[in-house]
């Protein structure tokens, strides 16, 4: 490891805590991933620790805990929002007050004290606002460590990134190149200022603030997130990506993403997320809304790796997310791909409302739970128009004492002539203390519809492991291979940039799950 790169702060910490070693000992910085050469990848795979669990030392402005109309007004004011948005927030807040958290998930979740959370945290620049484009070096370093370089010269070439830390967007890369094609990619706060008509038109049009408890909460207090608009007939030339990072303690993250793909356009969008290791639970309640117009196509991929808590189930993120896309135009297409490996609790159902004739929705999911993680995830495919099609492929992998549930709804309304759905729902169990559950809901109101549901449950067999061992492949690596093979159908749907990382993630996540 390059010792020069350890910042001064880390060394000081090391001394204060009387860690063994000399002054130049890099013990305090040992979780810093340096350049990803092969040997460090092997280290990652064998250590199996959560490598994103570090905390960034940056001055953060955190508003006092608690939620009230005043807090909603404060957030809106901090963001210099127009009146209509404040009204939207207040309506949502008032509606939220009338609601109770949903209890139908197959989840053992303690009651959340919503008055004990701070609803806004923002890293502040240390030297004052000299240049608005200047980012705190600590924040830059954080994203570097996460593999998301934001500096001009180091930017990822095939991907534009919106980097969000706690409640604010830090930087959006490649904006100018995209703007040449008329593509808007910026933080939602900026979009409110620069493109108020677009935001006003679409915000809440797919996920109403009345939709559910967490959606109402998000609508009241959402902080930042990304806004994407792809104009008519434009094929977005690079992957768009948002990287969400929770840093501050005792806060929640409530981001909001809005993607609009106009007629005949195409965009592939990626979302990544990590958080520091903390003993207390952290709340993450996001909303993603997608509008797909005629013949447009949106691919939305998530690699969710929020901190999952420790081996005993202490800490971790509660990931309570509402994601929904509206295929409004005829022959439009929306595809969700998710690899869910993190979070103490996951509650999310990326859904497709198929309103355009011949529109299609896809949901490809790998959800991994281990230790004491719980996941209740799946999708909703709502067929509203004739000739609509949907495909669901869900692969659950449970290990340790975890609980992994698939919950999915396929609804075919009377107007949806010749609607078609195929659902494949597989569960893989590692060990005998975990649970896999399937809750399919099928609601068909049109005789011409064809709806199929297939489900399997399997275990990695001793024979498979011995076969791998005999060929020299150690058990941990064999499990990684077998699990990646099992999840391949979904992994193949991920963009290249993500596929390798996601494969490695599966391997690391399952480290120590067998034997």
């Amino acid at each position: 490891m390059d010792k020069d790169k350890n910042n001064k702060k880390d060394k000081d910490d090391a001394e204060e805590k009387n860690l063994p070693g000399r002054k130049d000992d890099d013990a305090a910085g040992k979780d810093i991933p340096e350049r990803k050469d092969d040997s460090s990848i092997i280290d990652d795979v064998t250590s199996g620790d959560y490598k994103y669990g570090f905390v960034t030392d940056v001055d953060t402005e955190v508003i006092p805990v608690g939620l009230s109309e005043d807090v909603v007004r404060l957030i809106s004011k901090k963001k210099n929002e127009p009146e209509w948005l404040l009204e939207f927030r207040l309506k949502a807040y008032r509606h939220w007050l009338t609601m109770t958290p949903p209890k139908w998930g197959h989840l053992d979740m303690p009651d959340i004290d919503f008055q004990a959370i701070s609803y806004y945290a923002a890293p502040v620049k240390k030297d004052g606002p000299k240049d608005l484009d200047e980012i705190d070096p600590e924040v830059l370093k954080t994203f570097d460590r996460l593999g998301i370089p934001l500096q001009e010269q180091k930017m990822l070439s095939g991907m534009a990134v919106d980097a969000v830390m706690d409640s604010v967007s830090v930087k959006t890369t490649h904006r100018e190149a995209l703007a040449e094609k008329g593509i808007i990619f910026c933080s939602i706060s900026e979009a409110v200022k620069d493109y108020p008509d677009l935001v006003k038109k679409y915000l809440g049009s797919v996920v109403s603030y009345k939709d559910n408890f967490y959606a109402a909460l998000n609508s009241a207090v959402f902080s930042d997130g990304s806004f994407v608009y792809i104009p008519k007939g434009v094929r977005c030339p690079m992957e768009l990506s948002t990287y969400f990072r929770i840093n501050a303690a005792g806060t929640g993250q409530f981001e909001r993403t809005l993607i609009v793909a106009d007629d005949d356009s195409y965009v592939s969008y990626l979302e990544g997320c990590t958080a520091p290791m903390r003993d207390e639970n952290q709340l993450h309640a996001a909303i993603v809304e997608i509008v797909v117009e005629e013949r447009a196509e949106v691919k939305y991929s998530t690699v969710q790796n929020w901190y999952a808590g420790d081996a005993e189930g202490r800490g971790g993120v509660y990931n309570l997310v509402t994601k929904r896309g509206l295929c409004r135009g005829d022959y439009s297409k929306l595809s969700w791909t998710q690899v869910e490996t993190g979070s103490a609790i996951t509650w999310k159902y990326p859904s497709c409302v198929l309103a355009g004739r011949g529109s299609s929705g896809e949901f490809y999911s790998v959800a991994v739970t281990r230790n004491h993680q719980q996941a209740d995830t799946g999708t909703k495919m709502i067929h509203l128009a004739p000739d609509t099609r949907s495909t669901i492929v869900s692969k659950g992998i449970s290990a340790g004492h975890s609980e992994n549930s698939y919950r999915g709804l396929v609804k075919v309304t009377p107007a949806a002539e010749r609607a078609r759905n195929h659902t494949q729902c597989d569960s893989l169990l590692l060990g005998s203390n975990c649970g896999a559950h399937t809750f399919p809901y099928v609601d068909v109101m049109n005789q011409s519809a064809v709806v199929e549901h297939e489900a399997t449950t399997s275990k990695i067999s001793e024979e498979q492991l011995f076969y791998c061992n005999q060929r020299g492949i150690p058990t941990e690596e064999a499990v990684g291979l077998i699990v990646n093979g099992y999840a391949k159908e979904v992994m193949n749907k991920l963009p290249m940039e993500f596929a390798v990382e996601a494969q490695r993630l599966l391997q690391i996540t399952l480290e120590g799950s067998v034997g």
Partner: protein
Amino acid sequence: MSDEILLEVKDLRARVEEKEILKGINLTIRPGEVHAIMGPNGSGKSTLSSVLAGNPAFTVTGGSADFHGVDLLALSPEDRSHEGLFLSFQYPVEIPGVSMVNFMRAAVNAKREYFNEPPMSASDFLKLMRQKRAVVELDNKLASRSVNEGFSGGEKKRNEIFQMAVLEPRLAILDETDSGLDIDALRVVAGGVNKLKTDRNATIVITHYQRLLDYIKPDFVHVLYKGRIVKTGGPDLALELEERGYDWIKEEEDNKHREE
């Protein structure tokens, strides 16, 4: 053939659950030799191969196995593989979604890591795959398919020998590699084994039938019965067994024990 000993098995005993299956196996194998192990059903042939390869389903209760100076029984199955032991499975296992290429790369690089060598480059590895595929006439498509998934019986066995060709073991154990093969596949598989034969490595061929031994010529033939090697001879013994069956050996053995 040399005085060097590749594998020395002494009084090896093993059980599965509560049942003792191997009751004292003695076997000495030198580099360059081919040993055939024959015997009636249930005599312990497959158990012997599993135990040597370290299958955790079996428990070794006594004896020793020295593999070119290494205590074989003390090693994990993967380390036995790295040290040069290869088992061609009677029933090769399917691993859905894992391509042969990825599977073999993991195997090759695990071995290289064991010997502190860097992982093989992708281009070198693909070259190796191409070269070794030819040994058993395995086509390119098969190599990119998932491990044994949807393979015919013959393809599975050819795939086993292909893996053997890639891993270049010191000692290969072929567990009923001939079962389920038609005559053409048998010829290809046996041809592959013969191509891989050198004066440094050795082969144990476990089989019911003389047929395979027409193609893979053994130096020694052992008869396994009730967990012991009860008879050892040259290639002629296999022919005699083919002609007379196992009953005369069973009788001899059972009488011997009655006298005891």
